[in-house]
Each structure stands twice: as C-alpha cells, then as structure tokens.
C-alpha cells in the first residue's frame, strides 16, 4: 500500500544538499527517493525527517540543476540498498554501488541495506590472530590483529597511502596461508590517490582481489556519506556470508565527516565542536563498529580507516572521536617525516589496543609483550631527555642520559626506518628491538624479566 511508483511533481524547497517536499503520503523514515531533474537525470536521496505533511530528503548526488517546479520525486519505499555478489570482487564502483569501470552492471539478486544491523556483542569473537604487516613499528610496537579496526592518523603530505598500500600488500598470518580480500572506499580523495592504489595493487598482482568504491573529490559531497556504508555492506557480505578475510581501507574519513557537517548545517542542527553535529560519535561508530569477527563464522573484517588531521591536530573532533571508537591508532609524525624517516610512525601516541591478546607465547614470541613495553618506556625517556638537552645542551647530560640519546637515534634509524618494499618477519623485528636495547645498561631494562635478559641481552 505504499505509493511506490507514485510520482510527486515539484519540490517545495531546495537548500544545499537537502530537498523539502510537502503533501507526501505514506513515506517511511530512511526511504530512498529518486528525484528526476529537469534535464531527465535520476538522482538518489534519502528521507531524513518525515511528518504527515513534510519530508526532508538528503540528495546523495547533489542538488545542482534541480528546480522546484520541474523536478519530480518518487519514493521507493525501501532504504538504501546495494547489490552484493562475489562477482563484484575486482570491480570499480561508485559510492552507491554502480559500475564506474565501464563494465556492465553486476548481475545479482542479492541486495543489502547499506545501514546494516548492529553485531550482537554476545555473538562477537574476540580478535586474537596476529597479522604480520612486515612493518616493524607496527608488528613490534602496535600489532595489528585480524578483526581489528586500526586507523592511520596522518597529515597532509605524509605517506599514509604508501603505508596503507604496503600493509595491504604484505599483510599475512603466521599460521595460515590466506590472502586478504581488499575492499577500498575512497571518500572525496583526489583521482591521483585512487590511481596510486590501483597501480600499487596492479603491481603486486592483487588487483583481482580488490573491490573499489570510489566517490572522488569532484563527486557530490553527500555521496561520501553512503560510500563507506556501501563498502562495509559488501565487506560484511564477503566476510560473514562468503567466509573471506577482508581488509577494508577507508580514506579519507575527514572528508566523510565534513560531508556530514554540511548536511547537519543545512538542516539547522545545533552544532557541538567545530560545527560538527553532536551525533558525529554515534555516526562514526556505526561505521567503525562494522569490523570484527563473529563466533562460529570463518570470515573477518579488519578495518584501516585513514584520516588526515587538520593542521596535524590530534585533538580535532575527527581524530579525537575516531580514537575513542577504534582499537588504537597509528599516528604519523611530521617531525619524523621531515627527517626522512619512513614510515614516520610516531613512537608514543601510536597504540594498538588488541595487541596484548595477539602477541606473546604461542602467538609471536614470549618476550614480545615485555620488549614492546620496555621500548615504549625507554623511548618516552628519550623524548624527555631530548627536551632537556634542548635547554641545557647535550654536553651537560649525564652519561646514562647520553646512552638514552644514542638509543633513541638508533631506534629511529634502524627499528622504525625501513624500505617501502621491505617485508620484515616478526623475528627480524624482535631482533631489531633487542639490538637497540643493547645500547642501554642492563639495570635500566626493568620491564624485562631476568630470564629474558639472559636469553636475549647477555
């Protein structure tokens, strides 16, 4: 009894990305709306607020070219859905799941609501499988585990894309020989960035394993709101129905949040910090929480969102709220980047919350948790001493402090720094860590046990 097919002629108001319609009947909250512009093109939108007299519709493909009198709107009676199917792997699609690669439409009857449903916390399986990324600063210090959501906090100009691509190329499990299927969602990034990833995947031969959802910088901003949802809906299908291990790369979350702010402002909603709406946290959580494992099912979703921190400010709402939801963060450091350290992974603010359960005895090596903790403690001491040396001069430092300075330089040059194609095993990473710690006297290594010191230090 829905008015499916019934077309309303004329719009009451068009304001930014929003369209207001009056006198509509039997329209549901969240429904998809098809608006036909005067030039005959079809645009998709979604109902944001519906009362008996008025509907507020957010247009995914923008409102350019719409007119109040000559546009027509049709309510489809369903929420936003995308087609899913295994044959989509390897394709390049737009934000709402339509082909962008010039190939024909995907042939499948399976359609899924892009908003998904919450995973029941009771049904989750705690992620514990160590993923070896081949990057020491991640594997040794901020370990990624399968089913984790670990974002990269970056800044403009820093090599977050290279790092994400390197992880996508090198990621593997120690015990099993499974390739990750990669789902890549681009929100408002430049064509060059998308091209970089395509080239990188082509070079490593992984391109047939990658599904891309692209909503580039010149696409309508509101489409960015649905792009990650389309990508994650497809990832959920691959992981929990097709039983695959999926690595989802979302870039750039800052653009996504800005699109959200644009819509909120157009709706005259009360802003919280920096003009972002108060529900930014819940909205981001509805994306990030779509990662993980489910008890009894073979697949998994590992998420790696990338965001650029405006003026490298980690307390900006986007990185801040992201950090509260994700299970850690890899923070890139401007100073290290300027010293030509690749990857410029900041030693202290980076964190992996799931690391503790993915490493250690039977997973990586017994001493791994302790050596990581010791490296953090020592490196934080280095930072203090460097600050002190900046004031009093490095000649004035005590002999012990000088050793710490030496350790810090060695750590950055040999543990953190590595090549873009260098794939280190976890044993190599651990050995590099011990090599750095040998600069320090034994008595400073209080976070390591006597046995570990005997085995690896002496």
């Amino acid at each position, binding site marked *: 009894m829905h008015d499916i097919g019934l077309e309303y002629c004329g719009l009451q108001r068009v304001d930014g990305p929003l369209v207001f319609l009056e006198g509509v009947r*039997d329209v*549901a*909250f*969240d*429904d998809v709306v098809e608006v036909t512009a005067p030039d005959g093109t079809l645009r998709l939108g979604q109902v*944001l*607020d*519906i*009362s*008996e007299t008025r509907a507020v519709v957010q247009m995914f493909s923008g409102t350019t070219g719409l007119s109040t009198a000559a546009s027509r709107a049709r309510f489809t009676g369903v*929420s936003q859905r995308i087609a899913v199917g295994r044959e989509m792997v390897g394709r390049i699609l737009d934000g709402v799941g339509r082909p962008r690669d010039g190939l024909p439409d995907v042939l499948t009857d399976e359609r899924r*609501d892009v908003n998904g*449903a*919450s*995973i*029941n*916390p*009771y*049904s*989750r*399986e*705690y*992620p514990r499988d160590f993923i070896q990324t081949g990057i020491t600063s991640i594997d040794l210090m901020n370990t990624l585990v399968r089913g984790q959501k670990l974002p990269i906090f970056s800044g403009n100009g820093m090599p977050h894309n290279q790092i994400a691509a390197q992880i996508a190329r090198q990621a593997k499990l120690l015990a099993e020989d499974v390739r990750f299927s990669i789902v890549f969602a681009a929100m408002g990034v430049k064509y060059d960035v998308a091209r970089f990833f395509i080239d990188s995947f082509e070079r490593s031969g992984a391109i047939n394993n990658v599904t891309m959802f692209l909503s580039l910088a010149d696409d309508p901003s509101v489409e960015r709101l649905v792009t990650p949802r389309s990508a994650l809906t497809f990832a959920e299908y691959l992981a*929990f129905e097709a039983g695959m291990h999926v690595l989802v790369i979302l870039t750039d979350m800052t653009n996504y949040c800005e699109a959200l702010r644009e819509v909120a402002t157009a709706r005259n909603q*009360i*802003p*919280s910090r920096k003009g972002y*709406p*108060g*529900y930014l*946290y*819940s909205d981001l*959580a*509805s994306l990030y*929480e779509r990662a993980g494992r489910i008890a009894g099912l073979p697949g998994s979703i590992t998420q790696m969102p990338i965001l650029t921190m405006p003026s490298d400010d980690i*307390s*900006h709402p986007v990185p*801040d*709220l992201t950090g*509260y*939801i994700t*299970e*850690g963060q890899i923070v890139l450091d401007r100073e290290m980047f300027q010293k030509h350290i690749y990857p410029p992974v900041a030693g202290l*603010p980076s*964190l992996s919350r799931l690391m503790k359960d993915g490493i250690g005895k039977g997973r990586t090596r017994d001493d791994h948790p302790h050596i990581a*903790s010791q490296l*953090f*403690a020592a490196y*934080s001491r280095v930072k203090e001493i460097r600050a*002190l040396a900046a*004031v*009093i001069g490095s000649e*004035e*430092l*005590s002999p012990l*402090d000088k050793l710490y300075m030496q350790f810090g330089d060695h750590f950055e040059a040999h543990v953190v720094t590595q090549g873009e194609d260098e794939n280190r095993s976890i044993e190599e990473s651990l050995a590099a860590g011990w090599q750095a710690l040998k600069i320090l006297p034994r*008595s400073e290594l*209080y*976070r390591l046990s*006597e046995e570990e010191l005997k085995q690896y230090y002496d």
Partner: protein
Amino acid sequence: MPPVQLKPQTASSRANPSAEARIVRINGPVVEATGLSRAAMLEVVEVGRERLVGEVIRLTRDVATIQVYEDTGGLRPGAPAYPTGRPLSVLLGPGLLGNIYDGIQRPLRAIAETSGHFIRRGEKPSPLDLERRWRFTPSLQAGAAVAGGAVLGTVQETPSIAMAVMIPPGVEGELAELAPEGDYTVADIIGQVRRADGATTPVRLANYWPVRRPRPSQRRVRMDTPLVTGLRVVDVFFPIATGGTAAIPGGFGTGKTMTQHALAKWSAADIIVYIGCGERGNEMTEVLREFPELQDPRTGRSLMERTVLIANTSNMPVAAREVSIYTGITLAEFYRDMGYNVAVMADSTSRWAEALRELSGRLEEMPADEGFPAYLPTRLAEFYERAGSVETLNGRRGSVSVIGAVSPPGGDFSEPVTQHTSRFIRCFWALDRDLANARHYPAISWLSSYSEYVNDIEPWWRHQGADWQELRITLMRLLQDEVRLQRIARLVGPDALPDDQHLILFVAELIKNGFLQQSSFDPVDMYCGPEKQLQMMRLLVLFDRRARQVLARGGTLAEIREMPCLPTLVRMKSTIPNDRPQDFDALRTRLEQEFDAIERRLA
C-alpha cells in the same frame, strides 16, 4: 499451578492499545504521535507494527514525543502507537548474574539465539529465563507481618551469591501465604501479602522496578570501609570507600577501559554491574571471554558468577544508551537491598551525556555548554547520588559504589562532562597522557588525582594495625619532591643537583617503576592485596631511609645504585605473590644486610 502471565504492574488498566494513537513524525530516534493525551511522562509507548519500545519524553496537548530505543528506519507517519501505562522498568530476580543485557534489559544471549549474529529490531525476549526453575528456601512463615524489603527466603542464584527474595518496596501487610521449599520459575507466585484494606498482593521470585526511580532504603550510613581494588595506586594514594563515587577521566588511549576492567575484576565487591555505554563491542566480548576464566581472589569462584553486563555499544541505538546507566544502577540497587556491596562500572558516562545531547538536539531544546542540555548537571547528580552505603529496608547493610569513566574530547578536562562530574564525585582518578604514552599503566596521575575518602577510611587501615597513612604520606612526598627537583634540573642541569637530591629522583623512579606501575597481564601483579601493598611500601620507605643514612655518612649514590638487591626490589611486584609475605621478610633482611655492608665500608 494457575497460568501466570508475568506482566509489569500497571498503574491503571490502560494497557490496551489506544485506537486513536498514531505516529505523525519521525526524526531519527525521536518520534511524535497523536492520540496520546492520557499518556504519562516517561510512560513506555510501543510504536509501529514491530512495536519498537519507546518512552514519552514530552507532552504537548495530545502530541507525545517519544524517544525510541531501536532503529526507526522504515517507520512511517500513520503507523500505530501503543501506550502501555507503565514506566520503563527492569525485571529483578534470579538469573541476572552472569547475563549480558542491552540498555533496556533485553538479554543479548537470548537475542543471539533467536535473531542470529545481528540484532533484529522489535525483539522482546524476557530478561529472565521463564522456564528455568530455581530452588526457593523460605525463611519466614505465613502470618508474619511484612513490609517492603522483608526477606521471604533465598534462592542460590550462583554458587557464590544467594539472592534474597524480598517483598517489593511499597507493599505492606500480613504474609497470608508462602510457598514451601521447592523449585519455582520467576513467574510463579510464591506468596500473598494481605494488605490493610483486605486486598492481597502476589509476590513472585522476580518483580519489576522502574529504572528512573531510586529503590528506597531506610537511611544512609557513614562510609568507613575502603573498597579494596587490588590496584596499588588507588588503594594507597586515592582510595575509594565502599559506597563511594569515583570518576576516571582520560583522553583516548589512556586506559580508562583497562582500568575499569581491572577494577571490575579485583574490587572487593560482592557484585559487579558493568555498563558498557556507547563503547566498543569487542570490549564486552573481552569481558565475556575473560571473566569466566578468572578467579575471585576472595571466594575462589569464577568472576562471572558475580557480574552482570549491560552492553549498549556505540553502534547500538542512541536512546537505549541514554537509559543503560539507569538500568545498570537499578540492578545494583536490587542487590544492595539484599545486603551486598555492589560496584557499578559505567564506561563511559561521556557517551551517555552525548546521547542526552543528541536527543536534546532532536527536540530542538536550547543548548547550554558545547551543545549539552542545561539539565546535564542535574542528571549527573541524580545518577551519582544513587550510590551510597545504606541500611536497607530489611535492616541489612549494603552499598552501591559507582565508578564512572569520562571521555573528555581532546583529553581536555575543562569540558562540561568532566567539570560537572567532578562536582558530584569524591574520587578523581585523572589519567595522564604522558604516562600512557610510556605504557605506564594504570596511567592514574599521582599529581592531579585526589580522593576525599582518605580520612574516612584511615581508621580501617589503622584497625588492621597498619601504618598505612604514614607510609603513603612518605611516598607521596617523595613523588612531589621529584617534580620540584625535575623542574630545577631543567633550569640548571642535573649535574648541579647534590647527591641527596639525586637520591630523591632515584627513589621516585623506583616508586614509579616498582610500585605504581602495575601489569594487568602479569598473573602475580594483576591483583595486589592490602598486605602485599603494605609490605612493598615498607620496603621502599626503608630503602629511602637507609639510603639517606648512607649519604649522610659520606657514601655516594653510585654505591647505592650498585646494590645487588635492586633488580629484585624493582621486580618484587611480579615475583612475590600475595600469599608469600615471608619472601618480603627475606628481601628486607637482604636489603638491610647490603646497607650494613656499605656502612661498614664507610666506617
């Protein structure tokens, strides 16, 4: 056995759907419906054909504004609304412990069985298993005069917890009937109370209670016992009393959840209610996986037997997040009324405040600070005031302690939620970014945290014959001196400091690494009992005193740094278990001997 329908007590008989009520507007979780002129504020109204649960939060003539606890996608104007005539309530009875619920007490385990791995809308399974039979042992006899809170008997809910079956508050009269010992379901009537007006009220093993109304008690009592947490920095420097309130503010990655988990594991409470409010799903999974395998150091039983989980994770509906902390604290009060000490972990109250803000925004209310509604401090105060140590209606002593995590945006403690919270709590455990970055956990700052309970509970420690107060003051003074000296060293260079000041820096490092830092993953260090805490403090204070003596007699810091027992001293937290106090005596002897040797050389 008469067929019993387990229904919440209704205030009136308006439980039938009103033929008129229908939805007129949907704006996210906020729905407006007409034809509800008789609905009461905070009454539960179910909306749509799927009967999604909601609560009336505003009334304007016959239009009711309803906050809906589930996703409203697909709901359309004209759909029916069903008033229920009762406020949002939770079912209190046996079977709560070990269970996991969402914000409105829907059992997530049962939902997983019926709707699969993803939560489907409109699911309304009973919070308690209606089939399961519990052995009820009566302790009263028919004919007794009873009032609210009176204990009719017990049900052994888990091997470590006996649940008292109580007369619901507000019911008073003569116990007309009481079932004999036997096995009953939560829906069975096990007793009848004849009230003064002659009418009878049935009593069951489980009863409803509205979440937003505090359960009554006789009176509040003085809080004079510490809630021993097994975390050294808390128990020694910033203790919380049983029945007290504490806040843990900290930016992301500073270890709020880790600290909450550690407190939930090792606190000397009888019952733990853990509220995951707008946080990560995996954190709840971690509790579910880990707690059953851990042993309560006091009872030797599985920790899950004393724990109830409320999980309204960040991706679950925001309105249910708002109500989840009330659901949690109501469960806590229920066990308090049986005479138990209950600790509530609310992680995180900021997410709850944000849910309040989001709903307030949808209602187009005038915002105060940072978009939060003006009634935020009132709501916070109401919540924290439900904590306390009380004499219950049945004359027992019970308590609810509340420990709330706060997630300030950007780690900035001047934001409204942290600021308002700190007005209503008495223990402030500030998490420090630098400590967390150095992986010094728990990252509770010893400089900016405080506890107002120190003097209240000091007699308890003294009663144990302990020099707790003197020891903690000595150690704290060293830590404070260290900060002062660090500041000086930054100006004049460390070399300018004399040896006795270097010693303070050295001992402070020892306290930080060997005492304050505590590993949640080390099987020995994860829980540190009060006795071990005292032993460790005594050794550190002894070390400080003897080292200063050595310097005074002309010795050097270099000699002290070379002492062979130092690596043992700094690792005593993870090498000496709680049950081996004699090892501390041995270490003490060794320490004294090594100092004696240095002093002999000096003489």
